[in-house]
């Protein structure tokens, strides 16, 4: 279930750490034949470049696993990584902002005091809070996996350029959580503005400036 980028060499070759040399060899040959550009099993699934990307990983995996010395080193590295993974209990630890005091995420009450007013959570307030946390748009993008362009649109309230509300709600929630706000509360407030803004801008704009 892991995406390709997270798979280790054994997973790439679809074999197991106890595999014999012979098994590695067979797995490699099978993998190569599966991921040719015109492979019967894959051509209807692969987009351009997909097969080549997998082949590259297959070759890299085989280079390491076919040599007993490099395989030994790799196994040791995998074992060490597993050890490291154990105490790290935070699965999707939010990005730690520059100021450690803020790394906990500020409770809502405190934020309201810091902020100059109550009212809606608009794009400007989100931006304000991001900057207070010492974060760039790209930092939030890295943590939330939301494209920086959309994050900017959220801050600039370019509602017409944002996708369907199902997505925007998720984006705003993730953004808010990332800067230490209550995602649900922020999203509820922001989405009211979004819905209103979208309602007013239903007419298509052909020369919408970017």
């Amino acid at each position, binding site marked *: *279930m*892991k*995406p*390709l980028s997270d*798979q280790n060499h054994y997973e790439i070759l*679809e074999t197991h750490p106890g595999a014999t040399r012979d*098994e590695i060899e*067979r*797995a490699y040959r*099978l*993998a190569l*034949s*599966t991921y040719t550009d015109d*492979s*019967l*099993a*894959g*051509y*209807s*699934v*692969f*987009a351009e470049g*997909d097969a080549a990307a*997998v082949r590259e990983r297959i070759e890299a995996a085989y280079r390491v696993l076919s040599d007993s010395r490099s395989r030994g080193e790799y196994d040791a590295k995998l074992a060490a990584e597993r050890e490291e993974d154990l105490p790290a209990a935070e699965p999707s630890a939010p990005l730690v902002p520059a100021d450690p005091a803020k790394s906990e995420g500020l409770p809502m009450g405190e934020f309201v005091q810091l902020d100059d007013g109550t009212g809606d959570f608009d794009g400007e307030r989100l931006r304000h809070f991001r900057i207070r946390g010492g974060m760039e748009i790209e930092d939030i993008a890295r943590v*939330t*996996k*939301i494209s920086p362009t959309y994050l900017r649109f959220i801050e600039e309230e370019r509602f*017409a*350029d944002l*996708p*369907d509300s*199902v*997505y925007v*709600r*998720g984006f705003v929630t*993730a953004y808010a959580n990332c800067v230490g706000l209550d995602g649900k509360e922020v999203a509820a407030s922001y989405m009211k503005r979004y819905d209103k803004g979208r309602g007013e801008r239903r007419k*298509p704009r052909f020369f919408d400036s970017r």
Partner: protein
Amino acid sequence: MLRLEPRIAGAQVDIGMGERLNKLSAKFRNGSGDANRARLIPVGGGKGGVGKSFIVANLAASLARMGHRIIAVDADLEGANLHTCMGISKPRASLADFVAQREEDLGKLILDTPIPNLQLIAATDGNLGTPQPSQSRRVRLMRELRELDAEFVFLDLGAGTHAAVMDYFMVGDDGVIVITPEPTSVENAYGFIRAAFYRRLRLAMASHDMRKVVTIAMDQRNERGIRTPLELLREIQLLDAAEGGRFVETMGAFRPRLIINDVRSADDIKLGFSIQSVCRKFFGIQAEYLGYVNHDESARRSVRAMRPLIDVYPRSDASIYISRIARKLLGDGAGGQLREGSV
């Protein structure tokens, strides 16, 4: 700009009924350990002519010969021919009677076949205007199928990915997909796997919003550019962590099984492993390669003779491979899938 609303207009209609279906299919799947209940094995594949009926007739006949009580059900109301593969030229009763509500008791539609332990529910004489049962009728049908008095109930599905076909596939314990080593079949098989998975997934999502996202992804030209279940998973994890968890759970439980039919070369045999690999790497779906059946002239002769191959030519190559798959179905749960190197 994204304008998603119109595309999904029709898709929300069946959610209420879908939930019932889902509960039913979950119950069935969980209840597969119940010794009194038939194991339901739907056999599909997307493309027509890949040998679904041939495989069903022969797996059923093979298990029957081993002494198991089998009912094979033709669920292909628009292209019924399982009866022919099993030596019955004019069935006197048909599933169509149940669909048209002329008969409420599915058990009364069971026909004996020339093979001991093997019975059939045919699908001839369907209503040409509305061959498929309504959804409420489908729910009823699936419940009745489970109640049939047999150890195994095979369901021979029609071609395509019609909602009815997908429902039958989903309700079974171990959906089998028959593929032949040709691009058209492989392509349709992926379409079938995706359709089945998305359908199951949409029913597993608790929130209306996430169902909507799944529905958007089901449109293969969706504007979000979601091509594969793995990409959809990333999308949903981002939007809602709890639903992401349900997604992973559904993905783990979905294990389509593959049979490659009409195999002529070692490369054809390997195709099963390759499809398994592509499913895993690109869809995140764990398919199981159940086995292959080689190309065999006697297979064609058996169809001409309107009898299962297993019955006419039990010593033919194809018969031997089919029996191998049948034994795997029996010993299931204990590593039923083929391992590379065992071929």
